[in-house]
């Protein structure tokens, strides 16, 4: 399976440990993720007011590249655009839904992009790698497992952007199971907890660190209380807030016990036993290495 792939900015900078193992495990599952030849930032956060059409330009421009890849035969009849970063997934999806539901908006955006050779026809479907893997079947994942996750209890942290709003969520907004199913296919054990989709504080990490410190501490404490050894996520911003901000949590709460936070792709990589240098453990603030 060949899929057009949108990486997003952060995967090329601070979250290489999400992308590199993801590309490798996808390959082993027979999914070739082909990066768009030109792509631009999706805008990170979606605009939610009715009159901010221009802010949807950036996401839509990326969809033209998918149409072009099909036209050039790089992919065959593949309207899905796969993402790894939860925020990119959410922002691209919301813009795409708006275009698909409002032909007038789409027309205006297309008119604005008159220098582009292609017009966006609304055909692209933004997807996240996780549901693509679920469609392949967990059996396919099980077959690739070389080192089953033993004696590790995993807290599945979805955050917000994979689940909400409902019409872009990859799973049930209040009772998601996809990460639990993945962990179980990798031979691991999950915990049952209530903080798996509680917000970590998001971009407040830039100018209101305290919010993030409080929220992230609450999430990690809950994971620990329910017996977790590690938290997994697919969002580079959640990963930063839950992992790197543990430094700040420890400064404020000296009794706080740290916990590793890894990307789902790293967890898969470890179970698939991919090359150690591709796992990217060194990019995690709290080292997960001893667990695996």
């Amino acid at each position, binding site marked *: 399976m060949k899929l057009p792939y949108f990486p997003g900015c952060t995967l090329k900078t601070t979250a290489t440990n999400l992308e590199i193992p993801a590309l490798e495990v996808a390959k082993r599952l027979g999914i070739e993720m082909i990066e768009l030849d030109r792509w631009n930032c999706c805008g990170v956060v979606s*605009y939610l007011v009715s009159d901010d059409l221009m*802010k949807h330009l950036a996401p839509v421009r990326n969809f033209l590249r998918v149409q072009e890849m099909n036209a050039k035969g790089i992919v065959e009849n593949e309207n899905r655009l796969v993402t790894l970063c939860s925020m990119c997934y959410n922002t691209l999806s919301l813009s795409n839904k708006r275009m698909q539901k409002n032909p007038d908006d789409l027309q205006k955006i297309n008119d604005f992009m008159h220098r582009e050779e292609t017009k966006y026809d609304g055909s692209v479907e933004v997807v996240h790698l996780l549901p693509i893997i679920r469609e392949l079947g967990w059996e396919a994942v099980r077959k690739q497992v070389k080192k089953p996750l033993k004696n590790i209890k995993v807290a599945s942290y979805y955050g917000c952007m994979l689940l909400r*709003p409902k019409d872009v969520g990859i799973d049930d907004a209040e009772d998601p199971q996809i990460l639990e199913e993945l962990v179980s296919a990798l031979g691991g054990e999950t915990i049952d907890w209530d903080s798996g989709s509680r917000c970590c504080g998001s971009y407040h990490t830039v100018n209101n660190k305290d919010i993030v410190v409080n929220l992230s501490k609450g999430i990690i404490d809950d994971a620990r209380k329910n017996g977790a050894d590690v938290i997994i996520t697919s969002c580079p911003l959640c990963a930063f807030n839950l992992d790197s901000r543990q430094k700040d949590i420890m400064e404020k709460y000296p009794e706080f016990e740290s916990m590793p936070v890894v990307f789902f792709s790293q967890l898969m990589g470890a179970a698939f036993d991919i090359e150690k240098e591709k796992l990217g453990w060194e990019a995690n603030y709290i080292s997960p290495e001893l667990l695996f």
Partner: protein
Amino acid sequence: MAKLIKLDDKGVEFLDKIMELSGETITLCDQCGTCSGGCPFIAEMDVNPSQIMRQVMIGQKNIMESKTMWICASCFTCTVRCPRELDVSKVAEALRQVKLREAIDFIDIEKISEEEARILPSIAIVGAFRKFTG
């Protein structure tokens, strides 16, 4: 001391403006409190989300001075729970936009330390600046 409130046309204009910007029928709000009870940021807010809905409905422009709308990070928890399927996060965004369009920014780039700027992921910085500047 109880506050004395006058209902006037300016208040109605304010409500209409926020309803148009957000696309949400704010008058549908039942004041059940689900949004406030589920909000992960509630401890940081000075005014509860349900109160924001109420005040906008009654046309109380002074809620623009509340910091609640800046705390809301569009996590959509209220969106998926509101029994009337109102999207409170869109209302918060509309209120932020009213302020930002007066060229009042809510973030100061100078205040981010060099050390922080080095470690912060780009999505954090881009996200914050997109939400906090006009």
